[in-house]
C-alpha cells in the first residue's frame, strides 16, 4: 500500500462539504422550480382514448380466467377483429402519430423545458467545480482502482505517482451526482424532477408510439390461453364455508 496522505482539514471544510450541500440544495431548487413551471397540459383526446383501450385490453388479459370461455372469446374478437377491432390499426397511420408529436408545439416546449432544467444546473455546477476546485487532491476513495482510471479521476493532479485512490474534486462531483439520487428520492418523495437517468431513458424512447403499443397488446391478447378457473367453484365455496362453520 502506498503512503497514506494526510490532507488539510481545510479541504474537508471548504470543498467536500460545501460541494455536497450545494448539490443537494440545487436539486431541491430544481424540484420546486419544475413543480412551479409545470404547465397545464390539456391531454389530447385521441391519445387518452387509445391509452384507455390499452388498459381495457390489459384488464381483459389479466382476468381472462374469471369469465366463461365464450364471453372471453367474444371480447377478444371485439378487440382484435380485423376490420373494426379496437386494437387493429393499419400500418399507414403509424407515421402520423409521431409526426404529430413533434409538431405539437406544447409537447415540444415541455420536452425542451425539462431538458434545459436538467442540463443547465449540471453544466453550471460542473463549470464552477472546475474553476474553483481544481489542481489538488480532494478525497480518497476507499477502494482501489486500476491505473486506467487515473486520467479520469485525477484530472487536475499532475503527479503520476500518487495512488489512484486519491481523486480530484471533479470526481467528487460525479460521485455526488450519482449518489444523491437515492437521497433525493427519500427527501422529496417520488416523482421528483431530479431523477436524471429516468429522464434520459425517456428521452431515448421518444415517441409515445400508440400504434406500437396497440399492436403489442393485440399480440399478447392473441396469445392468451383461456383457462376457465371457476368450474370448481362450487367445491371451493363448499370448502370455505365448511371451514367457517
Amino acid at each position, binding site marked *: 500500500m502506498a503512503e497514506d*496522505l*494526510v*490532507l*488539510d*482539514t481545510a*479541504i*474537508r471544510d471548504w470543498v*467536500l462539504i460545501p460541494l*455536497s450541500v450545494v448539490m443537494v440544495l440545487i436539486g431541491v431548487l430544481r424540484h420546486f422550480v419544475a413543480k412551479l413551471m409545470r404547465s397545464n397540459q390539456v391531454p389530447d383526446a385521441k391519445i387518452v382514448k387509445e391509452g384507455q383501450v390499452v388498459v381495457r385490453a390489459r384488464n381483459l388479459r389479466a382476468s381472462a*380466467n374469471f369469465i366463461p370461455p365464450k364471453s372471453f372469446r367474444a371480447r377478444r374478437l371485439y378487440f382484435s377483429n380485423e376490420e373494426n377491432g379496437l386494437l387493429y390499426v393499419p400500418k399507414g397511420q403509424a407515421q402520423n402519430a409521431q409526426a404529430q408529436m413533434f409538431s405539437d408545439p406544447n409537447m415540444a416546449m415541455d420536452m425542451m423545458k425539462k431538458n434545459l432544467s436538467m442540463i443547465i444546473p449540471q453544466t453550471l455546477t460542473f463549470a464552477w467545480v472546475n474553476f474553483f476546485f481544481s489542481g489538488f487532491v480532494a*478525497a*480518497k*476513495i*476507499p*477502494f*482501489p482502482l486500476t491505473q486506467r482510471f487515473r486520467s479520469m479521476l485525477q484530472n487536475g493532479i499532475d503527479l503520476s505517482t500518487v495512488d489512484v485512490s486519491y481523486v480530484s474534486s471533479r470526481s467528487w462531483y460525479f*460521485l*455526488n451526482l*450519482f*449518489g*444523491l*439520487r*437515492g*437521497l433525493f*428520492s*427519500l427527501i422529496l418523495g*417520488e416523482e421528483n424532477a431530479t431523477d436524471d437517468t429516468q429522464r434520459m431513458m425517456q428521452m431515448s424512447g421518444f415517441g409515445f408510439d400508440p400504434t406500437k403499443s396497440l399492436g403489442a397488446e393485440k399480440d399478447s391478447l392473441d396469445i392468451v390461453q383461456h383457462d376457465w*378457473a371457476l368450474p370448481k367453484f362450487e367445491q*371451493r365455496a363448499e370448502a*370455505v364455508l365448511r371451514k367457517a362453520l
Partner: protein
Amino acid sequence: MMGHNDSSVAEKKSSDPTNDIPNFNSENLQSNMKTIYYSRTFLSIIGGVIAGISGFTSLTGFIFYFLVMAITSVGLIAKAGFSIHSYFDSWNRVVLDGFFSGLMSFVLFWTFAYDIVHIF
C-alpha cells in the same frame, strides 16, 4: 439498525390469501415495492456511513454492502410476517429487487465518512 421503520408505511395486503388463484391489487403491490425501495436506499446510506467510520476498505466494504442488503431483505420478510405471497408476487421481489440501486449512495456516503474520519 432496523431503521426502515422510519421510511416504510405499513405494507398493504396485495392479494387475498383465501383464494387459490393469485389475484393482485396492483396499487398496493406498487406501494409495497416503493416501500422496499425506500428501505433499501435508507439502509444503504446508513450502511455507507457505518462502513466509512469503521474504516472498511475495498473488498470488505463491498461485502459489508451485501451484508446490509441481506439484512434489509430479512427485515422486510420479517415485517411481512413471513407470508410473502400475500404482499408480493414473488420471492425475487423482496430479496433481489433494488439490490444495486443503493450502491451509488452507499459508495458516496462511504467515501464521505471514510475521508472525514480517516484522512482529514
